[in-house]
Structure formats: structure tokens, C-alpha cells
């Protein structure tokens, strides 16, 4: 007897299913809310109040996503201590990024710094992003489950491939004046999109 257990594939606990629904709801909800908020920002010229409200909304959704994702991983037996540390580091880095970005914009607009100080102020938003890159590196270094580590590396390579592809194609389009200029800081978001695609599709799984 197998005590009613499915010996073929993974067992999906009821809580896991609920958390999967919650995850989908949060992702869709975040996209819709951000879309509405962005339109409102442009249409009603909400300025700083709108920007801070959007930042708080993103923070709330992101926190919810991390918590739900962690709970789902725990319930399906796929949670690791390294993943927990990664989540906490990413949340901290996101908070630092938000403060650094808004701080740098405010200082730049209010004080118009020049020389070395201008470089220091312009560097502020990078700190949070660099901490995110550090968190990704630590996840691969600290993950003790070899299959999970293999998946992280595979997803990272997919993200890197996405970045190289988009940067190359966009770069030449830009060279021939076909598309607008995209700032270099877009590299990390493009990499993250590739990472997300790899994690949500069979491409990122061995």
C-alpha cells in the first residue's frame, strides 16, 4: 500500500494550490494596479505624491509576492535556507534602491550638485541594484540543494542570453535610428525579465 500517496509525481498540498492562486492573483494585480497608477500619474500629473504612492504599492505587492512564494515553496517541500536569505536580501536591496533613487532625484533637482559630488549622488540608485546582483550571486554560492543550484545557474544563463540578445539587436536598431535610446541601467531589468521567463517556463528547467 502507498498510504494514498501519489508515487508517480509531486504531491500538491491544498495550501500549495491556494498559494499558487494567490501568487497569480498578486502578479496580475500588481500589473493592473501599476498600469492604472502609471496612467493616473501621467493624466493627473500627481508628481511626488503619486511617485511615492506607486513606490509604496510596488513595495506592498513585492513583499506579498515574496511571502507567498516562500510559503508555497515551504508547503511543496522546495524551500531552502539559501532561498530565504535571498528573498530577504532582495527585499532589503529593493528598499535601498527605492530610497537611493528618490533620494538621488530629489538631491539632483534641489541642490544641483556638480563635480565629484554629482557622481556620488548619481551612484546612489546603483547601490540597491548592485546589492540585488550580490544577492543573486550569493544564492548560487549558498544553495546546498544541487538541483536547485543547477536551476538557478540555468535560469541565470537564460537571463544573460536574453540580455545579450536584446542589447545586441536593440543596439543596432538604435545605431540606424530606428528605435529610441535606452539607458545602460536597463541591463539589470532585462536580465531579470529573462530570469523570470526561465523560472516560469520549461526553458529554465533541466
Amino acid at each position: 500500500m502507498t498510504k494514498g500517496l501519489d508515487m508517480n509525481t509531486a504531491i500538491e498540498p491544498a495550501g500549495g494550490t491556494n498559494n499558487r492562486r494567490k501568487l497569480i492573483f498578486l502578479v496580475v494585480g500588481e500589473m493592473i494596479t501599476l498600469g492604472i497608477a502609471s496612467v493616473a500619474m501621467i493624466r493627473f500629473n500627481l508628481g511626488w505624491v503619486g511617485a511615492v504612492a506607486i513606490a509604496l504599492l510596488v513595495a506592498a505587492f513585492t513583499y506579498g509576492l515574496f511571502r507567498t512564494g516562500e510559503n508555497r515553496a515551504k508547503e511543496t517541500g522546495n524551500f531552502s535556507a539559501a532561498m530565504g536569505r535571498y528573498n530577504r536580501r532582495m527585499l532589503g536591496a529593493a528598499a535601498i534602491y527605492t530610497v537611493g533613487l528618490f533620494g538621488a532625484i530629489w538631491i539632483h533637482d534641489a541642490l544641483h550638485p556638480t563635480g565629484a559630488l554629482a557622481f556620488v549622488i548619481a551612484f546612489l540608485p546603483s547601490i540597491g541594484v548592485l546589492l540585488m546582483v550580490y544577492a543573486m550571486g550569493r544564492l548560487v554560492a549558498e544553495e546546498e540543494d544541487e538541483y536547485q543550484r543547477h536551476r538557478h545557474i540555468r535560469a541565470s544563463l537564460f537571463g544573460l542570453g536574453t540580455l545579450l540578445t536584446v542589447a545586441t539587436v536593440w543596439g543596432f536598431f538604435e545605431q540606424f535610428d530606428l528605435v529610441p535610446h535606452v539607458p545602460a541601467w536597463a541591463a539589470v531589468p532585462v536580465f531579470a525579465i529573462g530570469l523570470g521567463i526561465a523560472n516560469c517556463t520549461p526553458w529554465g528547467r533541466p
Partner: protein
Amino acid sequence: MNNRLKVLRAERNWSQQDLAERLGVSRQSINAIETGKYDPSLPLAFRIAELFALAIEQVFVSPTQHQSKAI
């Protein structure tokens, strides 16, 4: 790489989660190894074999042997 993990697990009434906990790996790892989507490292393969008190080749089927049998 083909293996007898599912059969060995079934003989002991262990779920994937039970086996994962005994080996200190994630349930996803067990699922990926069982379905042949992921080949474990040599240390993990030895741990699996030792857990079932079997030789490694009694758990995992050599890809070359598998090929020659097919021919």
C-alpha cells in the same frame, strides 16, 4: 539517466517528500531525478544508493548499458 528510484521508493511506501527529507534535498530534486530530467552528482548518487543499501549500479542504469540493450 534511467533509474529505479520510483520502484525502490514504492517498495518502502515513501513519498517523494519522505525520500527528499531522508536525503536532505528538495522534493523537486527527487522528482527531477526520478523522471530522468536531472542526473545527480556522484556524491548524491552514492548517498541515494547507500540509503537503499544498494550498489550505485543497482539504482542507476548506466547510459551505455541502456544503449547496448536497446541495440
